[in-house]
């Protein structure tokens, strides 16, 4: 019985950890790219 409970707790913890990691992987931001470092100017133009 105790073993079953321990396994269930570990599975829940692993699931929570997986959700946290996946949220971190998918999280986005607003990135400033210093294009002077790459020697480029304006990156793209609409068509």
């Amino acid at each position: 019985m105790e073993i079953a409970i321990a396994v269930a707790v570990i599975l829940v913890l692993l699931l929570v950890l997986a959700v946290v990691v996946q949220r971190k992987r998918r999280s986005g931001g607003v990135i400033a790219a210093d294009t002077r470092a790459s020697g480029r100017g304006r990156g793209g133009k609409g068509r």
Partner: protein
Amino acid sequence: MTTTPSLLLRATELIGHPVVTIDAGEAVAEVKDVVYGTTEAALLGFTLNNRGFLGGPMKQVLAWARVAALGRHAVMIATAGDLDERDDVLVEDFKGARRRNVISSEVITDAGERLGEVTDVVLLVDAEPEVVGYEIGGSEILTPRKGGHVFIPLPETLAVSGEALMVPAAVRDFVSDDLAGFGASVERFRDHLRRSPTEQNT
């Protein structure tokens, strides 16, 4: 290129937006990061996630040149093949460029005054979208009300270096507290800089 004329929007609103193909009407990706260049404050494009919660970051990116239309609810591209251009300009910019997430970065003026922290970046979306302002919070100077946010206009060339984002001290005279009236503030600020070019030293 089809966009709502001169649409002002927060860059973080685009994060998570679906990337939809016009030919098949299929959502092929989601926006992960919004990427802009500091040389001319131009929107360079987007990094992408696969669709769905289990989808991770994609190797492909979407350069602005490949975007057919950008609206409040989706980013439109002609075909799914537009994501496969590994040698496109956004990838090239990413390879050689120093880059950083500007959200939560500190904003200081060229007079050494701390204005606050960036909570969002304002984009002016037209044929050639560009970054025109920061939304900032945590400012004791500009937002004495706790938790208040204001919009500050930016010059046409930005300074992003080290830990802080540098802006001309003159932005204090062109602060706006709502996005609707912010476009006029940006125009007045840039006119001011053109008339006093010595202030545009950032």
